[in-house]
């Protein structure tokens, strides 16, 4: 399958400010790709550039092989965008909002009512379909905005801070919907967020951004390995007397071993060494209770990169 998004040295300046500064990345079909960064990192500007509503100052982008600058209308026909604020017509009903955007996205008039009903039902808004949006809670508005972005079944979905301003329950609901779209429908999604937990849970790969630049790009595993080539594994034993470590240092790939009561912490060159460590301990008759390789979270990666400011 062909690459969905291909971005090369993309730039956008506003006066002296470089909102997007030489970004290069690709997004593959079915992937959930995260644009991660603090406010002002250039996430929203990137979404606007990729949808052709803002022209770049330099570089190039291709979405479905189309140039957003000259073929923006065709690009937007294939994309759905959930903006940072729901941007709904509050004086109109939920049904009117969906019907309006459905018409603009080219859904035939004969199919429109059915499609609107489907979306209202999927997003559990059928009971309030004919109520004005101004009477909705924030979570309901966000669900309706998501329905609007999906009404024309776009193969590519952009989500700009999808849970911004929502309470934990509503945020969990919206995240669940996004996860369903990705897993069940194989939807390609670009998620712009500064919510690290959300990104870790939903994204296959992330681009960590700061001041318009990509600091690092890859999956959580790839980024962990890039930042911390060596890793630690903690081994808990049944009792302190079992915490034997004799012979582990001589094992190829083991860098150092530390004792701490009934716990043994072993630094290894890579995760592939861990099974050998366990095998050796079992051979030594050690009563292994638990093996816990230390995982790095996206938060660890993010803050390490943001502090360093380099990839």
């Amino acid at each position, binding site marked *: 399958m062909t690459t969905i998004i291909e971005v090369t040295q993309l730039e956008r300046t506003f006066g002296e400010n470089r909102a997007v500064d030489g970004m290069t990345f690709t997004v593959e079909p079915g992937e959930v790709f995260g644009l991660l960064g603090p406010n002002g990192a250039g996430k929203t500007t990137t979404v606007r550039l990729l949808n052709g509503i*803002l022209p770049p100052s330099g570089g190039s982008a291709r979405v479905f092989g189309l140039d957003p600058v000259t073929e923006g209308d065709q690009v937007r026909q294939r994309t759905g*965008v959930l903006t940072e604020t729901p*941007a709904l*017509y509050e004086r*109109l009903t939920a049904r009117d909002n969906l019907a309006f*955007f459905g*018409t*603009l996205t080219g859904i035939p008039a004969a199919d429109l009512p059915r499609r609107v009903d489907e979306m209202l039902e999927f997003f559990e808004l059928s009971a309030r379909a004919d109520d004005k949006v101004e009477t909705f809670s924030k979570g309901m508005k966000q669900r309706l905005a998501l329905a609007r972005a999906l009404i024309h079944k776009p193969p590519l979905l952009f989500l700009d801070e999808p849970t911004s301003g929502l309470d934990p329950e509503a945020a969990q609901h919206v995240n669940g919907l996004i996860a369903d779209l990705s897993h069940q429908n194989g939807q390609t999604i670009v998620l712009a967020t500064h919510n690290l937990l959300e990104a870790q849970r939903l994204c296959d790969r992330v681009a960590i951004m700061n001041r318009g630049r990509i600091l690092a790009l890859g999956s959580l595993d790839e980024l962990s390995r890039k930042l911390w080539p060596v890793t630690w594994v903690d081994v808990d034993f049944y009792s302190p007397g079992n915490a034997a470590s004799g012979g582990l240092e001589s094992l190829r790939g083991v860098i150092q071993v530390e004792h701490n009561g009934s716990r043994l912490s072993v630094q290894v060159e890579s995760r592939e060494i861990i099974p050998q460590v366990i095998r050796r301990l079992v051979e030594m008759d050690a009563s292994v209770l638990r093996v816990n390789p230390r995982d790095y979270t996206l938060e660890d990666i993010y803050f390490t990169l943001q502090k360093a400011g380099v990839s």
Partner: protein
Amino acid sequence: MNWRSIWAIARKDLKEVRQNKAAWMPAVIVPVIFAVVMPLAFILLPQMIPVEDIERELGDMQQMIELLPPQLASVFAGLGLEQAFVLYMAGFMLAPLFLIMPLMFASIVGAESFVGERERKTMEALLYTPASDTELFLGKVLAAVVPAIGISWLTYVVYIVVVNAAGFNLMGGIWFPLPTWWPLMFWVTPAFALLGISATVLVSSRTRTFMEAYQLSGSLVVLVLAIVIGQVTGVIALSILTGMLIGAVLWVVGGVLLYFSIRMFKRSQLVAKL
């Protein structure tokens, strides 16, 4: 050009305006004043106050009739003083004031639909749709022009009914509209609506608030005032020919403004202001 999208945008904007009391209240109040209150006052007044007072007042009006071109002044020949007063006020003096309506409604709806969307933060979602820049623009223009012309025409109809009903006895039958009103209604009014919306859209894409856009485009009312003053002082008279000429100039100016507005309308400019 996708006309379905254009109509959808226009319909949506009209629905929104309908829900916004602050936007449509002037659309009710002003026509009622123009089409009911003012003609009733001018027609019933001479039938209610003493004849000697009327004669004193109409002495000044006689001078104004003399300022009219001969072909218009001839309409007054053989009329009584009360009849002349009614004909002059309801048939001539109020005519240019009606041009405020298409201008005002086009400005209100135009400013509301462009800047209002930005103020309510709904513009971005609209810009992410596949509708082209021209379709977006024409949808917004249509949303402003259609009610501006529609309400103006409706007001004319009410005015015709009120003027004829209230002046039936005094004038001895149905006498209105005068021939000079036809170009005013069907030629100058749509031209004013076009001019109003073209100017508003041009201003709206460069301002940040609804009030700023409305006030700037509202300054076009000066044109109407110029016609009113011109008519009172005898510099111009809204004869059929004058109406056609004024309308032609407005169509050209409005058309040129609209053309440049379409050319200059870029969603990227709107995005930069979000």
